[in-house]
């Protein structure tokens, strides 16, 4: 069998750390970067006699996410104990949700690929459940002992579990990115992958094309970048196919990705898989969410990326690709919308071009976030308007942009004036230049009159040169055409 005979099947489990101020079951702070154990209270360190009390903010964020993926919000959900022993889990169990999660049966439609090859893919989301994070083990040597920092213990997480709907690493990355955009868009997670706020586990299996049963999967744990997600899946798929083609079998296992070597490594096999012995946590009553609360959360949701994308294509006339880029973050989308609001919807396309072109390149090069851009949306709008009404050329607009970027000027019209960028559009001023060009280039004139349209460009070029670029090329073209055909 050759490679094309295999189909890849991927499902993702994503842990999104929620943006609450306090922990999921205690009033300790969740702020990042505190000294070890300064934010681990008696509940977080599991002192006997303490009891968990659920954070309303964590539930509210779960509802937000559920609504954003068009899922069912469970009227009643239950917290369960997931039992295992590890020193960074002082209770000996993690409080999670098992049989009755707070969110189930959602879906998200994502754009995969670019240009001609781009297509839409809907990934079903089986469930999203609330749970607490564990602490951190530090294995550096403390006289042969392990150090435990419990600041992270009890931090609220939403585990978002997809169906095995993805068929390539590219689809998995597109889905993970879309979810990453979405959680930040609706403000439930800051998405900081370096700090571990958004962690991805990938379940990967392969099967012969046409087979409907799933192959044996291996779970790649704790991927903290989209690049690693891609690399880990690519490696894993290659490994599984090679193993099967050589007559071997894939054993169900949990593996880790080693970014330095670019390969996955077995962490534990099915034989020593954990037996978590889930059972309902007697310390916590069922979580009941009423319709009124759901509707209140719904009314506070912003327009979602998918809906906005559709609007940008249908009402603003953008390509799906540009619409996808502009909705990569709420900040970028808001910036674009503010520019279009000021410029007018008819100028949406040039606004998008400036933002995705010049501005994106400059931001990228200088490592500045869109929110800190010295060039504001109103600047983009004024720039686009001045190009549109013929006041400045595209080359002139680039100079204005430069002045705005460096802070040399704050006002588009003032910069145009200060730098003398205004194009000469006045007919009487242009007429003598046009006449001179016609007189000096009889050959081009003849060619144009003989039907060669291109000859006109040569004449326009002559006028532009004579005006040192100050003439409005559109006006010059009109004037030349009128004089030569009239």
């Amino acid at each position: 069998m050759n490679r094309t005979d295999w189909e890849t099947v991927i499902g993702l489990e994503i842990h999104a750390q929620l943006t609450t101020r306090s922990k999921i079951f205690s009033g300790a702070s969740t702020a990042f970067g505190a000294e070890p154990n300064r934010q681990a209270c008696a509940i977080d360190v599991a002192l006997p006699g303490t009891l968990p009390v659920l954070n309303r903010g964590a539930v509210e964020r779960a509802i937000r996410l559920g609504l954003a993926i068009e899922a069912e919000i469970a009227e009643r959900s239950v917290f369960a104990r997931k039992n295992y022993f590890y020193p960074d889990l002082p209770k000996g169990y993690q409080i999670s949700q098992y049989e009755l999660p707070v969110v189930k049966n959602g879906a998200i439609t994502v754009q995969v690929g670019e240009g001609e090859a781009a297509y839409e893919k809907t990934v079903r989301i089986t469930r999203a459940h609330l749970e607490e994070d564990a602490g951190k083990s530090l294995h550096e040597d403390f006289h042969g002992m392990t150090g435990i920092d419990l600041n992270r213990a009890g931090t609220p997480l939403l585990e978002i579990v997809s169906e095995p709907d993805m068929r390539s690493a590219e689809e998995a990355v597109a889905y993970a990115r879309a979810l990453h955009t979405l959680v930040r868009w609706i403000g439930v997670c800051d998405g900081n992958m370096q700090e571990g706020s958004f962690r991805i586990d990938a379940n990967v299996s392969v099967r012969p094309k046409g087979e409907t049963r799933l192959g044996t999967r291996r779970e790649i744990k704790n991927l903290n970048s989209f690049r690693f997600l891609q690399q880990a899946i690519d490696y894993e798929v290659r490994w599984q196919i090679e193993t099967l083609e050589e007559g071997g079998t894939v054993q169900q296992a949990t593996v880790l990705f080693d970014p330095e070597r670019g390969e996955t490594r077995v962490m534990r096999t099915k034989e020593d898989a954990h037996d978590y012995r889930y059972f309902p946590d007697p310390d916590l009553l069922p979580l009941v969410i009423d319709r009124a609360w759901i509707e209140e959360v719904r009314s506070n949701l912003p327009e979602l990326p998918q809906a906005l994308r559709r609007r940008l294509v249908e009402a603003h006339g953008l390509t799906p690709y540009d619409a996808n880029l502009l909705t990569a973050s709420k900040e970028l989308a808001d910036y674009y919308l503010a520019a279009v609001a000021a410029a007018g919807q008819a100028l949406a396309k040039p606004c998008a071009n400036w933002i995705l072109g010049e501005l994106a390149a400059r931001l990228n090069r200088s490592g500045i976030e869109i929110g800190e851009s010295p060039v504001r949306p109103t600047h983009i709008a004024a720039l686009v308007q001045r190009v549109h009404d013929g006041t400045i050329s595209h080359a002139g607009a680039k100079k204005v942009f430069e002045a705005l970027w460096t802070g040399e000027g704050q006002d588009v019209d003032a910069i145009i004036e200060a730098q003398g960028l205004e194009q000469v559009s006045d007919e009487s001023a242009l007429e003598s230049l046009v006449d001179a060009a016609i007189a000096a280039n009889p050959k081009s004139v003849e060619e144009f009159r003989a039907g060669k349209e291109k000859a006109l460009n040569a004449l326009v070029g002559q006028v532009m040169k004579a005006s040192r670029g100050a003439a409005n090329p559109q006006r010059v073209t009109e004037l030349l055409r009128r004089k030569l055909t009239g």
Partner: protein
Amino acid sequence: MPAIDLDRIAELARIELTPDSAAAFRADLERVLALVDRLQAVDATGVAPMSHPLDLPQRLREDIVTESDQRDALLALAPAAENGLYLVPKVIE
């Protein structure tokens, strides 16, 4: 009644069993399972599974930081601590 895999249960609970205590545990667990069998025998058709004996919803707290830093007091309870960390025997899984 299903066979009791006492070694597996002890391993999951991280409990070391002596032959004497093993016999006592086995007897206890057999009694627990017998009780469960009696419960299983009840016809519960149409009864929604119960996750908690109290028929009440969970009360929620507002998302406010209410705890102050008690690190030193809590670390003092631990058998070993250093540099603000709890120290435990080396565990690498």
